[in-house]
């Protein structure tokens, strides 16, 4: 298992299009991918889960990847979140 603390920087947080982008990217990996936010454990492959967590811009999250391609997943998704998810 690998993990990394991140800050969501894009303007609208994990809403709408940025959330969709993240979920799509996460779904390409075999690993289990979760975000720990406040006391919630969010499945990043589920748009409904990500949206209903209501993660606003500026939120501190922990990205956790576990599985055969965990390194690659952590790297790709970290870059995506740090680049502002297309916003």
């Amino acid at each position, binding site marked *: 298992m690998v993990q990394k603390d991140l800050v969501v920087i894009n303007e609208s947080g994990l809403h709408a299009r940025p959330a969709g982008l993240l979920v799509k990217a996460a779904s390409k990996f075999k690993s289990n991918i979760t975000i720990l936010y406040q006391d919630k454990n969010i499945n990043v492959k589920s748009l*409904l889960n990500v949206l209903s967590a209501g993660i606003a811009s500026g939120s501190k999250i922990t990205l956790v990847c576990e599985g055969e391609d965990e390194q690659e997943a952590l790297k790709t998704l970290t870059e995506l979140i740090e680049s502002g998810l297309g916003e």
Partner: protein
Amino acid sequence: MKSGIAASKGYAIGKVIIKSHQEIKVTDELITDIKGEKEKFLSAVEETKRQLEKLKEQTARSMGEEEAEIFEAHMMMLEDCELVDAIISEIEVNHFNVIKAVSQATDRFIAQFEAIEDEYLRERAADLKDVRNRLMANLTGNSVDFKIDEENIVVVAHDLTPSDTAQLDKNKVIAFLTDVGGRTSHSAIMARTLEIPAVVGMGDITSSVKNGDKVIVDGFTGSVIINPGDDDLEIYKKKINEYQEELKDLKKLVSCETRTKQGKRIYVAGNIGKPEDIYQVIENGGDGVGLFRTEFLYMDRNSAPTEEEQFESYKFVLEKMGDKKVVIRTLDIGGDKTLPYMNLPDEMNPFLGYRAIRLCLDQKDLFKTQLRALLRASIYGNLSVMFPMISGVQEFLATKEIVEECKRELDEHGVVYSNDIEWGIMIEVPSAALCAEELAQYVDFFSIGTNDLIQYTLAVDRMSEKVSYIYNPMHPAVLKLIKMTIDGAHKHGKWVGMCGEMAGDESAIPTLVEYGLDEFSMSASSILSAKKLIMVL
């Protein structure tokens, strides 16, 4: 007469068709054939997906790619792993029939969304309901799609889902009314995109009218008259004609060049805050952007935007405007606008204190990040950059020195930028207006920021209720400073714009045109009326 929230402007007189709310009966019946029930579910998912794909294509063609994206989100919801797992487990573990399984699982998610304060997220509950209804209809062999064959129809519904609005044929549907919803609900936004009037949040409109009723819809006031008398019909027919004439006249101006009667070309541009505001400027025929307030990029976040983020925003706007001029103002923070992450000092007189260019000259790194992003973006369009709150020549020269520093750094790294960028200043401090002639030797252009210029000239805070009556754009002292600024610039062959509220004020425009102002920049919705006015001056 009934009333609700005016969600999209315009008038309509038409015949009611009620889109009934299909209640699908959920029974508690338990099943034994688990495999068969799961197959039913999966094939309904497939069918639903096919329909959504079709809707997406249809919407992309009729309304645009951006509007079609909602169905992409619907497809993702439909195949959401958590939702699918939940439904399957209701079937496998609880032996629920598929309808009940779908209803239980989706209701849990809907309840989660509806419990969130954020209005945007509550709207996602509506999306999920839309997906659920479509899925349920496919499970029961019903159809959620409705067809309208007549013209002049006012659709009345409890709520319109995205898939309902996507299917509204603008040639037949001339307005819609709903029981629920607000100005930002999906149906309201769609109505504005389709440019048809809509009144939402009416409470009980579905039970107040019947199919075939005649209604008048007033999308300006949010009122609806059911089976109107001749007097009302007469009044509204006249209003419709007038409004259509007005719209037609204004729309003609979108693509035309604005010239005064004497033939002087005047540029009417738009003010923007967020990059996506550019679409409204384009739709309203703006001759460019006269003010891009970059401070919005810095707000509602925990740290300053990176160079890369800013670069993307500037590039986006420049590309959208093609060869039209885009004037980007560097960070104007301080005064009444603060940023939590910058720890700005509390001051006795914030408007006379540490703000705008003064702050940027002091926090050089912050400033240089923005300048580098601007320089790099410059190759994507016609960029002009202006600095806020400049009070005299020295300040401008100090600012330009930092620009040169950034250019040298980019050169060292072989990064390209345009050499045609115009560098100008805001004229909002009286001293700058008084020194306009001297300043004009150094700058490429001026843009008059009237809100601050008036407040500094008349020493009045217009937010202060007891003295706000003193705030007057047409005060002789203000007009004198504006005239000095324009004359000073023209003497050195430089152009002058105005980007304060006064630029869009129809009572001020004639005077400003007479003074020789070259560019007016205002909110996008005022552009067409301003063009119209200038063309008869």
